[in-house]
């Protein structure tokens, strides 16, 4: 029976992940963004666990657990801590408004869908995951250029990372464990380093607005 339920469950989780990406694009409050990101990581951990269950790859359970701990719990906490310390405004300031943002996000998804068509996929029940993963990889950078605050730019990178993780389980049902661990280490250290630099920016510029970071040109 699980043969029918598990793939269906995975498909709906992937649909939810896509929905959460668009919710991130559309939300204007920092804490909501943090929560949505945590929720998305939770969904991702569930997908990893389900794939582990259906393929019998125990390594993937470890990845699911790590995703849960690091991405769904630890990183959101770091975020809230940083934003409280430097006292950022709750509102996210945008260069591109929400409606056009969602439109651009939608077109990026269509592009990813066509690009993904040319790659055949090893695990049949994950057929829809690759376009979702690719669209997250494209939406991430877009989020970074459309947001003003340094802190919210980090979300873009995290969305890309989530998309990549979805991509790895989609295409290969997981890379060798040591590689995955290394990638996790890099992501965690990356967020920490970015947090530190945001602190520094706040200290020296007394703002985290990227408009201030425009002296080096030419």
């Amino acid at each position: 029976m699980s043969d029918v339920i598990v793939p269906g469950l995975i498909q709906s989780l992937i649909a939810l992940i896509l929905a959460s990406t668009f919710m991130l694009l559309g939300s204007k409050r920092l804490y909501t963004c943090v929560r949505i990101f945590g929720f998305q990581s939770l969904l991702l951990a569930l997908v990893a666990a389900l794939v582990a269950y259906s393929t019998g790859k125990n390594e993937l359970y470890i990845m699911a657990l790590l995703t849960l701990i690091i991405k769904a719990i630890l990183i959101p906490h770091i975020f809230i801590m940083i934003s409280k310390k430097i006292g950022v405004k709750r509102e996210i300031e945008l260069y591109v408004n929400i409606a056009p943002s969602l439109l651009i996000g939608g077109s990026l998804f269509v592009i990813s869908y066509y690009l993904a068509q040319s790659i055949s996929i090893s695990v049949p029940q994950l057929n829809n995951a690759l376009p979702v993963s690719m669209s997250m990889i494209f939406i991430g950078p877009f989020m970074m250029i459309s947001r003003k605050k340094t802190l919210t730019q980090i979300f873009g990178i995290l969305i890309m990372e989530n998309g990549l993780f979805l991509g790895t389980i989609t295409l290969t049902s997981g890379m060798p464990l040591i590689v995955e661990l290394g990638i996790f280490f890099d992501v965690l250290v990356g967020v920490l380093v970015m947090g530190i630099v945001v602190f520094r920016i706040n200290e020296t510029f007394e703002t985290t607005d990227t408009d201030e970071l425009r002296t080096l040109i030419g």
Partner: protein
Amino acid sequence: MIKYLLLLPIITALLGIVAKTQKQIETISIIGSACTLIFGLALVSEVFRYGTINTWENILFADPFSAFLVLIVSLVGFIISVYSIDYMGHEIQNGVIDLKKLKIYYVFFHLFMFTMLLVGVTNSLILWIAIEMTTLFSVPLITIYTKKTSIEAAWKYLIICTVGITFALFGTILTYYATIQVLGEGGSELNWASLLAIADQFDPTLMKIAFVFILVGYGTKVGFAPMHTWLPDAHSEAPSPVSALLSGVLLNCAMYGIIRFHTITSASVGTEFTSNLLIMFGLLSLGIATPFIIMQDDYKRLLAYSSVEHMGIIALGFGFGGVLGIFGALFHMFNHAVTKSLMFSVAGNILHKYETKKIYEVSGVVKSMPYTGPMLVIGGLAITGSPPFSIFLSEFTILAAGFSQGYILTSVLVLLFIITIFVGFFNHINRMAFSKPPEGITVGDVSRWSLGAMLILIVLITVTGVYIPPQFSDMIMQVVDVVR
């Protein structure tokens, strides 16, 4: 051997943490980097004598190309660590940084060395982790001054390179997917040689998409236009020895990643696709660097844009292909690393003397700095590709490859760009080196340590410019066999 080579910088960094005085840290740093150089050279000779090394669960891997990169990293790393003593000592004396900052500097200097060595001696998957780590560990080096501009530069560097590198990871995953389609799950042999052996069975469409992601991703880190925007900022705002490492060594590490995948992808889809992409990015980088070099008013940014130019030339060499093109490109990687380190060292000395980065505020360096001045002229001639220095030879080889492979129009364009850059660049050097020094500048130069380090670099570029030792060209030929 590889394990010890990787352990050395980490041990040095750990010892740096517990060191108490400035003298101690400096001694540890020098000894550490000297040992790294010795072990690096030992690894190089082992690889060239006994062939490829593959140890530690297939995670560590060294073939001639790896050894070549290790040679560049450990050699330039050692010379720059010697140069750092004076440069950072001067900053301490003038109260720009304190002892705590100095410790941070040396600790991350060696951690940064570790990540760059790891790039060279690992397999296709860990490569990504290593390159991402190079970004993370070099950020503290760039922000060491905690000035507004250096923090801005660090933020741009961090964000742009992380995005780029995430694209590269997607390309790496696609390549891994192609591998397990051939080998099946659990194919743990993921080093470069075994990937190349089965590359002809990879799905061509998949590999094309993967290569585009890799090229854009690692290309960001190499500084290919139009993804180069972080490069002039980071290189000009970092302390000069760090600029030398970033420009001379780090860019080569990212280029190494691209070329590894270029080799594998060409084996799968034929050379035309990847070569054309490399030529395109190379030409674009050269074209965009040219106006910025001519119009530049900041001499450290001038050198940074010159790095964009030279990375473009290296990409063109690999793109033209053939024994001649690849030989030229590899030789150019080495030459650029050495010459650019020299130029950033010179720039560091000038910055300390004149306390400005503006080209028009610097004049008469030859008169005011009796040793640095001539080095500025020699380095300037060398970096723009004049004989008898080594860059002339490698640029000439790459152009010859371009003409002989039938890329006539591209080669003519490259030649025009190089000549324009020569004129523009030398105009700046001329202004800085000659004419009357400004009022109130005393005559005098930096101390012996720095000058000694720079002298080694000058000897290297002059010797390889007139005579390539047969062992060295033999070595590059072995690398050519791997890359082809």
